[in-house]
């Protein structure tokens, strides 16, 4: 479905994404994890077409989309949410979602019907007429998700939709995300909430300092020394391994 081939993105002297490659299979939920500043959001902006890569290619459903602007990629079926939520603050919840729905439903009545259906799906059905600016953090995250879904994407890029939610809100959102996948939408999600990543994702890619340093099944990733070091610093894997045997001095 999605194929990123040795993509690099430089911001001046800073290499935010460094020759990263990854594939996401159709119908799967894949995770993209990595420490803060690893380049995850930047990689999303490259896939969604908000920035052009300095080198490398992005293909979607067998088509090279590297040169296409963001709105054309959305029309092809790539939708993204924003890590920093970007609601249309002056609009109501249903109007926000309708903007996404208009992509495939030019008539007002159809777009609004679609928007209502999507709102129900993500649990915003009771707040349709509320102003987007008045939503809680959890509500805004749901709105991000709903707007992207309303474009009827084939690939959904979720950038930390669980960040800032409390444990019970996270528990509510996990089945919502799984439900979206079960309806046939391929999902690539950036997430720091490991419990969610481990329970949702079938495949995980790990990005550190712009490079893909590991990929595989959640269980493999959790025990990969390179991943542990990326998160906890050099030598961490060894120390962790030594801990059970070595005793209390760590």
């Amino acid at each position, binding site marked *: 479905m999605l194929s990123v081939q040795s993509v690099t993105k430089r911001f001046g002297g800073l290499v935010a994404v460094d020759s990263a490659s990854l594939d996401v299979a159709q119908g799967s939920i894949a995770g993209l994890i990595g420490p803060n500043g690893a380049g995850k959001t930047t990689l999303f902006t490259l896939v*969604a077409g*908000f920035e052009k890569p300095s080198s490398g290619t992005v293909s979607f459903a067998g088509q090279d989309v590297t040169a296409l*602007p*963001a*709105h054309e990629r*959305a*029309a092809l079926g790539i*939708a*993204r949410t*924003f890590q920093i939520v*970007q*609601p*249309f*603050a*002056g*609009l109501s919840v249903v*109007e926000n979602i*309708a*903007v*996404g729905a*208009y*992509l495939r439903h*030019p*008539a*007002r009545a159809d*777009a609004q019907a679609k928007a209502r259906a999507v709102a129900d799906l993500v649990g915003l059905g009771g707040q349709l007429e509320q102003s987007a600016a008045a939503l809680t953090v959890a509500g805004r995250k749901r709105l991000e998700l709903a*707007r*992207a879904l*309303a*474009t009827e994407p084939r690939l959904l890029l979720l950038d930390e939709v669980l960040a800032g939610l409390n444990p019970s809100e996270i528990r509510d959102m996990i089945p919502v995300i799984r439900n979206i996948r079960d309806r046939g939408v391929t999902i690539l999600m950036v997430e720091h909430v490991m419990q969610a990543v481990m329970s949702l994702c079938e495949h995980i890619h790990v990005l550190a300092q712009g490079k893909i340093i590991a990929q595989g099944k959640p269980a493999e990733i959790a025990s990969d020394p390179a991943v542990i070091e990326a998160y906890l610093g050099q030598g961490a894997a060894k120390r962790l391994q030594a801990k059970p045997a070595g005793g209390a001095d760590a």
Partner: protein
Amino acid sequence: MIRAYGPAIVLIAAAALVPFAITANTVLNFIVFALIIALAAQGWNVLGGLAGQFSFGHAAFFGSGAYTTALLQTHWGVNAWVAFALSILLAGAVGWIIGFLSFRSGLRGSYFALVTLAFAEVLRILANASTFTGGAAGTLVKLDMGPANFQFASRAAFVWIALALVGFVLIATIAIMRSRFGAWLTAVRENEDAARALGVDTLAVKLKAITLSAAITGAAGALYVQYYLYLDASIAYGPWISIEALVAPIVGGIGTAFGPILGAAALHGFGELTKLFAGGIPGIDLVLYGLLLIATIAFAPDGIMGLLKRLASVFDRRRTR
């Protein structure tokens, strides 16, 4: 449908009755002038109010519409109605060009506003210097009364024509606001990045908005020429009309369909009244104008429409109690 368009139809129909009740030339003169301003402001509102792209230079479009109709008639003897239609097209084209140059290079906010102001000023200076436009002496359109020439002895006829244009744009604005294009305009105004993520071609939307906006304000310019039969560079491209076009929607209610009309009526209504009662003091109407603008921004940021909405909700609450 009736809920959406009813108030507009009632307002236009009621206004169309005014010339039957009032025949004083000074009053009809005032109404035509206020309607021309309303039309220019409706144009500004499409770009500034709906798409959120503030222009300080709508004179560029007003003047282009005005000069097109004036020069086509004086230089080539083109029929006034044909010239009027062409002036709308040409003003739209000027809008598209200015939009293309500024939106393509990513100009937003105050940068865009300043660039539009610069375009209008350049056009004013060029029109003032050129002999083709009559230069500083201006251009007179030949007096030749008759419906075929878009010239009417009766001022009431002009009121109705201006009203028809304002009414048409009012209905069209409501239709746009209820359409996909309207939702995209709002999305661009509220958050361009989010709009792009949802498949909105923001550049195309902004270009459409400025073209439409310029065509409408251009029609106001052409109408001005047809009514006064005289034009010079400072009327056509002067800052006065850029200011009129943007202040009326702000006072009336920015981004609302009725805002530009209510704003133009309120500003010029008060202006005329003060001239009537304090006519001896030169510029007193302008002082009032400024005071109204300050009062709006300070106390009613959503303009007259916002005040009406607040009043309506207060009454609603009383009723349900």
